[in-house]
């Protein structure tokens, strides 16, 4: 399980750029190039370039593809227009989270983008439930690379390389096919940084050309590794599987009711369990900001007036706020913004304030 045997088509680019590489869910990935702070700052102020080719792309086709996906995921696929995407959970029959996903609805297929670490769990869960249905699953992870440009200047950075597509017509959380460097690819206005940006689903063979075009086309565009990806998503209040999300929690335990639609048609397979989970949930996900200099880390206990109320699920020093920030799973009685809690940092209680998420509001183009 810990063997690193998968490489993205951009591995050589990362090594040439002097990246520190690491094993991530079996993939040999860039952890950082010049340093977390510099990379983080670049994304917040201008633009960063990411190799996310480890993400799993599963293409679903067949007559019953939409009903099938609708019963598998928690969010409502049928509310999407063609080309639109949604964030969703995939839950087991106990209502616990197998993975969090991005799901795209297209005219003739549905794309499911899953975490690298959960790829085999997601694929086998889907395969098991697709049996007997007019549904075909194609795990294209190792054929499709994913290159992301994220930051307030993302559109200006990418547009000069795109033929035949005006990026201003690509709405937030939608995707359109376009041509970059002469190659057709899926251009999606999505990301995991809180900034405006695009994720390019490109065939492996063309990933290198796309990467070079973008990097050479903008002197201030900075390659960004997984370490800064984590600080960026944390400042944005985005959950991470393995930290906030796990097989032990339902979406209701971590404030994901907004992507859990029990009354949609057809209903999610996990509906009975999810109804129970909704009733019995006592926790929620909150943001915490340290008042002093301490840095919260995953696993640190969270107290309220000396009484345990939860734990830190992700923590870091926020490069933007210059303070320790955390996502924490706490009792719902402690969730109101402004509530004074304590994070136990190496045995010592340190003051922390419940903070409305996101910690940092980026340039992302939101719409209702």
């Amino acid at each position, binding site marked *: 399980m810990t063997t690193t045997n998968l490489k993205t088509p951009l591995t050589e680019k990362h090594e040439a750029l002097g990246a520190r590489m690491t094993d991530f869910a079996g993939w040999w990935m860039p952890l950082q190039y010049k340093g977390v702070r510099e990379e983080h700052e670049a994304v917040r102020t201008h633009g960063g370039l990411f190799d996310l080719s480890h993400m799993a792309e599963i293409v679903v086709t067949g007559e019953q593809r939409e009903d099938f996906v609708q019963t598998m995921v928690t969010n409502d696929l049928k509310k999407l227009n063609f080309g639109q995407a949604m964030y969703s959970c995939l839950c087991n029959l106990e209502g616990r989270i197998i993975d969090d996903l991005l799901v795209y609805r297209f005219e003739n297929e549905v794309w499911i983008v899953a975490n690298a670490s959960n790829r085999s769990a997601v694929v086998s869960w889907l395969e098991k439930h697709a049996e007997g249905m007019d549904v075909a699953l194609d795990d294209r992870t190792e054929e499709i690379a994913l290159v992301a440009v994220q930051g307030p200047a993302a559109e200006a950075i990418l547009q000069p390389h795109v033929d035949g597509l005006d990026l201003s017509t690509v709405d937030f959380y939608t995707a359109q096919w376009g041509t970059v460097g002469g190659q057709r690819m899926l251009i999606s206005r999505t990301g995991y940084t809180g900034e405006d940006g695009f994720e390019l689903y490109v065939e492996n063979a063309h990933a290198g050309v796309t990467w070079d075009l973008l990097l050479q086309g903008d002197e201030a565009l900075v390659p960004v590794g997984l370490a800064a990806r*984590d600080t960026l998503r944390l400042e944005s209040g985005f959950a991470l599987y393995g930290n906030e999300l796990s097989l032990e929690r339902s979406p209701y335990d971590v404030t994901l009711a907004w992507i859990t639609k029990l009354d949609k048609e057809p209903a999610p397979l996990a509906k009975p369990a999810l109804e129970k989970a909704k009733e019995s949930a006592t926790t929620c996900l909150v943001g915490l900001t340290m008042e002093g200099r301490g840095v919260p880390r995953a696993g640190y206990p969270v107290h309220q007036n000396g009484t345990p109320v939860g734990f830190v699920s992700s923590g870091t020093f926020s490069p933007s706020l210059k303070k320790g920030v955390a996502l924490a799973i706490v009792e719902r009685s402690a969730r109101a913004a402004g509530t004074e809690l304590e994070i136990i940092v190496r045995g010592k209680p340190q003051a922390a304030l419940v903070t409305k998420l996101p910690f940092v509001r980026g340039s992302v183009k939101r719409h209702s």
Partner: protein
Amino acid sequence: MIPEDLKYTEDHEWVRIDGKKATVGITHHAQDQLGDIVFVEVPEVGRELERGDTFGVVESVKTVSDLFSPVTGTVIERNEALDESSDNFEPETINSSPYKDGWMIVVEVADESAFDDLMDHSAYAAFVENEG
């Protein structure tokens, strides 16, 4: 890269020996592994340390690491740049100048035999090589 005039520990600390005084910091390798350092906790002057004691912590953006005392002795000085209440607070000095401006504490030892167990630069270089 690894200064020849210093001694080293397996916890990636360096020691500059001047009589019974030992200046302590973390190595280039250690700061490089930690990444951007944002906070350092070092002991008060006067604190007694035993070799191997946890004497402080280094927080970087991505991780936290304990500091282990390389010698037994008394803390007689600490670097003001690492004191968060100081006007000169600059923990990133450890990244930019691990062997010089990023020093952490000075410990006075009772006996110079306290330095006997430390590695010299070539032993440390070999240690880093094997570990990596």
